[in-house]
C-alpha cells in the first residue's frame, strides 16, 4: 500500500498528490511515468512522475479527473492509500544542452513537462514555457514554471488570462519576433500536439511530443499502446512516451484513444 502524504487541489478537477513509492524514486527521471492501480478492482492508469523526493521516498503525481478511475483517485485524501504503483516506466526525456527550448503544455500536460523543463534549465538551456488552457481557473503550475523559465506565455481559449487563443498562437508570436528556437517539447491533448507539430514543421524545429496512448501492462507486453511513427508501429510504453512529432500519425492516435469511450461512460455511471 502506498500512503498519500499530501494532497492539494491545483484547479477544478486537477489534484496534486505526494505519495510513498520508495522503490520508484531511486531511478525516476524526467519524462518517466508510473502505473497506478487504486484497488483490487482498479484499472492500470499511467501517470507522469511530476517530482520525486529520494530522501523521503515519495513521488508527486498530478491527476486530472477524466473518467471513473481518475475520479476515484482524485477523491483520495491524506492517509488513504493506493494499492499498486509500478515504475519508473518509459524512456527518460532527452536532457541535453540544445540552446533555446520551447516547452509547450496543454492542460494537465504541464505536469509532464515541468520536470523536463527544470532539468533542461539546469543543463543550461534557455527555457520558454507556453501553457494553454480553456480558461484562467484551469491554469496550473504557473508559479513553478516561472521559477525555472526564462519566459512564460499563457494562453486561454476564452481570453480570461494571458493571450486569448491557442498555444500555437503564442508559438507563432515567438516566430514573429525571430526568437531562435532549437527544440520544442510538447505535451497535451492530441489535437494540440498535432497543431504544434504542424506549426513547427515549416521552420524545421525538432518537435518532441510526449504521447498519452491507452496503456495496459505498460511493460511492452500487450501492444495496446501501439502508435505509428515514421510508418512503423511502435509501443508507446517502452519505445516512448517521447517521439519525434514530425513522424507521428496523430490522426490514428486520435482514433485509438477513443476506443473505449462507450465503456468509459458506462463506468462513470456505475
Amino acid at each position, binding site marked *: 500500500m502506498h500512503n498519500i502524504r499530501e494532497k492539494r487541489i491545483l484547479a477544478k478537477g486537477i489534484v496534486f498528490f505526494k505519495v510513498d513509492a520508495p522503490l520508484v524514486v*531511486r531511478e525516476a527521471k524526467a519524462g518517466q511515468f508510473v502505473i497506478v492501480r487504486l484497488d483490487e478492482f482498479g484499472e492500470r492508469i499511467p501517470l507522469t512522475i511530476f517530482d520525486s523526493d529520494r530522501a523521503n521516498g515519495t513521488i508527486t503525481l498530478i491527476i486530472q479527473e477524466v473518467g471513473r478511475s481518475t475520479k476515484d483517485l482524485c477523491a483520495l485524501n491524506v492517509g488513504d492509500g493506493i494499492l499498486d504503483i509500478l515504475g519508473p516506466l518509459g524512456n527518460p526525456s532527452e536532457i541535453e544542452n540544445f540552446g533555446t527550448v520551447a516547452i509547450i503544455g496543454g492542460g494537465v500536460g504541464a505536469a509532464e513537462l515541468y520536470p523536463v523543463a527544470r532539468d533542461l534549465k539546469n543543463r543550461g538551456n534557455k527555457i520558454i514555457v507556453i501553457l494553454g488552457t480553456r480558461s484562467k481557473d484551469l491554469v496550473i503550475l504557473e508559479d513553478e514554471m516561472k521559477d525555472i523559465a526564462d519566459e512564460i506565455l499563457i494562453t486561454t481559449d476564452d481570453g480570461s488570462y494571458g493571450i486569448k487563443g491557442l498555444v500555437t498562437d503564442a508559438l507563432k508570436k515567438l516566430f514573429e519576433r525571430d526568437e531562435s528556437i532549437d527544440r520544442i517539447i510538447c505535451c497535451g491533448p492530441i489535437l494540440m500536439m498535432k497543431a504544434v507539430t504542424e506549426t513547427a514543421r515549416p521552420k524545421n524545429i525538432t518537435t518532441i511530443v510526449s504521447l498519452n496512448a491507452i496503456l*495496459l501492462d505498460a*511493460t511492452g507486453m*500487450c501492444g495496446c499502446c501501439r502508435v505509428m511513427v515514421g510508418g512503423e508501429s511502435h509501443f508507446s510504453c517502452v519505445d516512448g512516451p517521447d517521439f519525434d512529432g514530425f513522424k507521428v500519425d496523430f490522426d*490514428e492516435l486520435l482514433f485509438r484513444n477513443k476506443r473505449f469511450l462507450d*465503456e468509459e461512460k458506462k463506468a462513470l455511471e456505475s
Partner: protein
Amino acid sequence: MLEKRTPRQRQRTRDPKQRSKDFDEVALGFTQEQAMLEAKRCLMCKKKPCVAGCPVDIDIPEFIASIVKGDYEGAIRKIKEKNNLPAICGRVCPQETQCEALCTLSAKEKPVGIGALERFAADWEIAHLKLKVPKIGNRKGIKVAAVGSGPAGLTAAADLAKLGYGVTLFESLSASGGVLRYGIPEFRLPKKILNLETEYVRSLGVDIKLNVLIGRTFTITDLFNEGYKAIFLGTGAGLPYFLGIPGEDLNGVYSANEFLTRVNLMHAYEFPKYKTPIKIGERVAVVGAGNTAMDCVRVAKRLGAKEAMIVYRRSEREVPARRAEVDNAEEEGIEFRFLTAPVKIEGNEKGEVKSMTCLKMELGEPDESGRRRPIPIKGSEYTMPIDTVVIGIGQAPNPLIAHTTKGLEVHKGGELKVDKNYMTSIKGVFAGGDITTGEGTVIAAMGAGKRAAVAMDRYLREQR
C-alpha cells in the same frame, strides 16, 4: 491370456451450451473411481519410458502406484518431489505429446491418462490437506533473485528455496504467475488453483515482490549491489507479433496478449465492477491456431460474440494447439477457417474494424518447420464482415532486460544466449524458459527453471 482391458477414462467436462456462457472451469477431473480405474491401467513398466517424456522428471509409475493403493497423499508427495505446481501441470501440460506419447500402452491402445491422474492427486491434496511444506535444506544465508513469476521463475525460485537459498522473486504485474495469470483463462486454469500453488511456492520461503519491473525499477547491476549472488531470468516471451498487414492498428484489433490480459488479469469480463474495459463485436476472428488463439476465441464466445472463429493459414493437421482444446472449442460452437490468411483489415469512418479480407491457401512443400508451406491461391481473395480481430500468432522474448543490461547477449530473435549451464553472457546471471527458447510450453519452461536452479546451486557452491 485374454483379459478385457479397462478403456482410458475420460475426464468429465461441463455441458458446452452452459460453459460457453461463463468462465468457470470446463474440465472437471476424474472421480475417485475413475482415477482408480485409470491408475490400474498402468503397466508399471520397469524402464518407465514415460518419465523420459517429462521435462521435470516426475516418477510417474511410482505416483500412479500410490493411487492404485488408495494412498493419494503418497501420490502427491511423489509428484511434488519434482513438480512444485502439479495442479497447474495436470491442467495445462500437453501430456499427449510428452509423457503419454511414450507410454507403452500407446502401441496398442490409448496411453494412461497421466495428466488427469496428476490433476486428480493435486486436487485431492487441495481438498483434503492443508498445504504441507516439505523439509527445506539448511538455510545458507545466501541471497538469490529470480525475475518473472511465470512457470520458469516460480520453479527456479521454489527449487532454490528448497536448497536453502534466500530467494526473492520479482514480478512486474500486480499478481504472480506470469502467463499462467494473464494468459490462461479461468475456464482452463482457475485462479484459485494458481493462487494455491503460488502460495505453496511462497510457503517454501520465496519472497515474491510484485509490481517491480527489473530493467526499470532495479537493473541487474542494482540486484548484484543489493547482495544477490546469482540471478535467474525467467521473463518469458511476451512481445506480441503482429501480422504486418494494413489495418492492424484499427480499433477492434487486439494482440492476444492485450485481449487475454484485459480479461484474465484485469477481470474485464466483470466490467464495470472491475474497471478495465474490453469491447468486442458480434463477429470475432482470432488469427492463429495455437493454445493462445484457442483461449482467445473461447473467451470471445464467453464475452458474448455471436460468431467466434479461428482463422488459420495452414490446415487442420498443422494446428499447434492441443487436440483437447480444439475439441472443446468445437463443442462450444467455434468456427474454424483453415487455409485462410488475412491480408487486410478494413475500417469504418470512426477507425473501427468492419471487415477482413482473406486469401485462401493451399499446402505446398514442407518449410523449415517441417510443416507444409501454405501458398496463396490466386484470385481467391474474399472479404467478410468482422467487428473484432485478435492476433494470436505468437510472441517474441521480452526485450526489456536485454535492452537495459550491458553485456547481456541475445540471439537474432531476441532470445537470451545461455551456455549449457543456463548461464547468460554475464557471470552469475542465468536464464531459462521462453526468454531463451522463444515461445514454448509451461512445462518446458518449468523444466528449464529446474535445471537452471541445479546449475545455479553448483555455481554458488563453486564461488565459495
